[in-house]
């Protein structure tokens, strides 16, 4: 057995992103339980069949979760605390890209591996850091799948021409909107209308009316949960339904959205890497365990966070030691295939910048209170249904 191996995780447990942080925390705790107890059911994933870290003589895993409070400064303080006081061997996640940036800078200075599972800002892996790794797909991956989908989609039998993007104007919404716009325009699809708005608004009806006025073929929303809920409600109140409605990940994949507004957003299309709808898959099983624990579905963000954490643990195990350098080396050598993951990436393999080169995305559609994968057709569990239904 031996002393537990400590891994730190930074999450937003208070502040506006607390809801996402809470879900992620439950997933991380689930991951710890799965690693520390044998899970024959999940044997295809590393560390699941055994208990603790076999590579470290069966030492158990202990996670130290710290609240970054949505502040770059607190994120840094907590990273430092995890390193110097808790003596963690690696730090994972962090959530908002800006916070990941400051927290990982501390890890870099102290020579501790930092793995993020969900921060998408492209520049994070452009800093020349040697201790920084990222498992999630990033902007260009995301944009690519949307644009491919838009190229193939038909509205009333004709190709999509008019696309509108509504994005919240903080880092997440701005960067995703920007990369979609660039990719789309490069492939000959113009963005007819882009409406940036301030997140956490008290009222979003003006945006909805603008869309209603402009009548786009496709409306893409990039929002956090609170606004996502308001959009669904306001669209219903204003009686607006675009032929195709896309809600990008974050707010729309949040189970809170599905629970509170899912019934009036039927048929909304979402980008995800996590498709728990196929029985027998790792995703399905992990989701079932998560649901048993929390009573909620695991959403994509949470799943990516959990995957990032699991990848870190796998590397520690393979390192066979808790020295940071050994873990760093093991991370560099990571080579997981799709079957070893709980999420729909093609695999996990880091490039020289620390970015997972095998990350990928798929599109899912809301049916009832579940997202079903519908695109690309090769991996779809069900056919795509258009147009967008909303509340009927």
């Amino acid at each position, binding site marked *: 057995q031996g002393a537990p191996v400590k891994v730190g995780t930074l*999450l937003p*447990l*208070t502040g506006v992103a*607390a809801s996402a*942080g*809470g879900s992620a*925390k439950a997933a991380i705790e689930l991951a710890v339980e799965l690693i520390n107890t044998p899970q024959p059911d999940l044997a295809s994933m590393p560390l699941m069949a055994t208990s603790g870290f076999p590579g470290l003589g069966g030492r158990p895993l202990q996670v*130290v*979760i*710290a*609240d970054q*409070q*949505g*502040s*770059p*400064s*607190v994120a*840094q*303080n*907590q990273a*430092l*605390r995890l390193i*110097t*006081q808790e003596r963690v061997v690696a730090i994972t996640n962090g959530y908002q*890209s*800006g916070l990941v*940036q*400051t927290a990982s*800078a501390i890890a870099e*200075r*102290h020579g501790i591996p930092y793995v993020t599972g969900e921060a998408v*800002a492209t*520049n994070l892996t452009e*800093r*020349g*850091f040697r201790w920084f790794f990222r498992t999630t797909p990033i902007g260009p991956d995301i944009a690519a799948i949307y644009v491919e989908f838009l190229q193939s989609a038909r509205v009333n039998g004709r190709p999509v021409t008019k696309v509108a993007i509504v994005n919240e*104007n*903080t*880092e997440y*919404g*701005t*960067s995703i909107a920007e990369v979609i716009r660039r990719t789309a325009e490069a492939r000959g699809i113009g963005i007819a209308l882009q409406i*940036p708005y*301030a997140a956490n608004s008290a009222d979003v009806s003006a945006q909805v009316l603008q869309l209603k006025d402009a009548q786009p073929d496709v409306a893409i929303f990039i929002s956090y949960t609170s606004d996502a809920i308001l959009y669904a409600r306001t669209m219903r109140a204003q009686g607006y339904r675009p032929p195709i409605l896309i809600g990008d990940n974050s707010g729309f994949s949040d189970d809170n959205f599905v629970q509170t507004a899912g019934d009036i957003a039927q048929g909304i299309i979402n980008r995800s890497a996590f498709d728990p709808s196929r029985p027998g898959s790792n995703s399905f099983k992990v989701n079932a365990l998560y649901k048993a624990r929390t009573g909620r579905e695991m959403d994509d963000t949470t799943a990516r966070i959990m995957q990032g954490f699991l990848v870190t643990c796998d590397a520690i195990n393979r390192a066979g030691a808790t020295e940071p350098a050994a873990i760093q080396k093991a991370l560099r050598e990571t080579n997981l295939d799709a079957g070893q993951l709980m999420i729909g990436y093609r695999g996990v393999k880091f490039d020289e910048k620390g970015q997972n080169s095998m990350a990928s995305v798929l599109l899912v559609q809301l049916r009832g209170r579940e997202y079903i994968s519908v695109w690309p057709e090769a991996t779809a569990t069900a056919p795509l249904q258009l147009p967008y239904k909303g509340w009927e």
Partner: protein
Amino acid sequence: MSAATIPTAPRAAGRWVLGVAALAALLAWPLLVEDEFIQRIGALVMLSALSASAWNLVGGYAGQISIGHVLFFGCGAYASLLGFTWFEWAPILGAPFGIATSLLLALIVGSPTLRLKGHYFSMATIALAELARIVVVNTPALGGAVGVSGPAMPRSVLDLSFISPLPYYYIFGSVLAVLLLFTWWMSRGRMGFYLRAIRGQERAARSLGVPAQRYKLFALLVSAAFTSLTGSLYAAMLGFVDPDSGLGILLSVKMVIAAALGGAGTLFGPLVGSAILVPLEEMTNAAFGGGGTGITYVVYGAIIVLISRFAPGGLAEIWTWLRARGTRRGG
């Protein structure tokens, strides 16, 4: 009344001894503590004390409760990091530009807002800070919503990128010392009297020839300059600023809270307030944050509530009270 007749010499000497001891303790303790996290909290206390003391010039001494000081803080932070982004300067070299921008902004916004009384002034300052935040969010050249970063890897000492928190502690501490010296000098001279008079009865003060507007503006300028410098130091240490962390209202509120807690309008109030608030915040977060239940803020908030409940005048009130008791016993 009887207090006035007590010979003051021994007390003054006592005060000197106390002061030197306190200074020595402030200089030495980080060297005695090995824990970097604790040392970093020390540095953050200094940083918070710096902004709160700068705020204190306007909010405490002049009695103009600004809740928009983050505007100046943001100027400093952004100037530092934009200097790097645009010209690859070491962040701290942007500080003078941040100060210059802050002074300009203070000059422009000061004269109209300082006319406002009480809560109206507070709200106007909030509105200004929010305006700045919204403008920055919507201006890609200023980093937009994404924010701006400093050098990812330190290039020279000038980047002020240290692994140990100690250098930060001493840098922030020396700037704080300069600010406190200025405050002390100011409070004993004409400006200090004038500001207190304005705070008490502006009309009466003006009738005594106090150019209230001019003095308030001057206090605002000095305050803005130091707040901006604090922002630059913050940015140099953190290497990142975005509209929320550099221009968000919460930061303004924290300056006010730190000063109010220790005693606004007193020399050491902001330092004392920061020395309580910052560790309290970090400790509660360290102790309870990982639980994800929000108990961090319940405890943190409750302690603030209790302090305001039992010492509404700030902890300086308790100090005065203790001293009064002390002299009564002694006398």
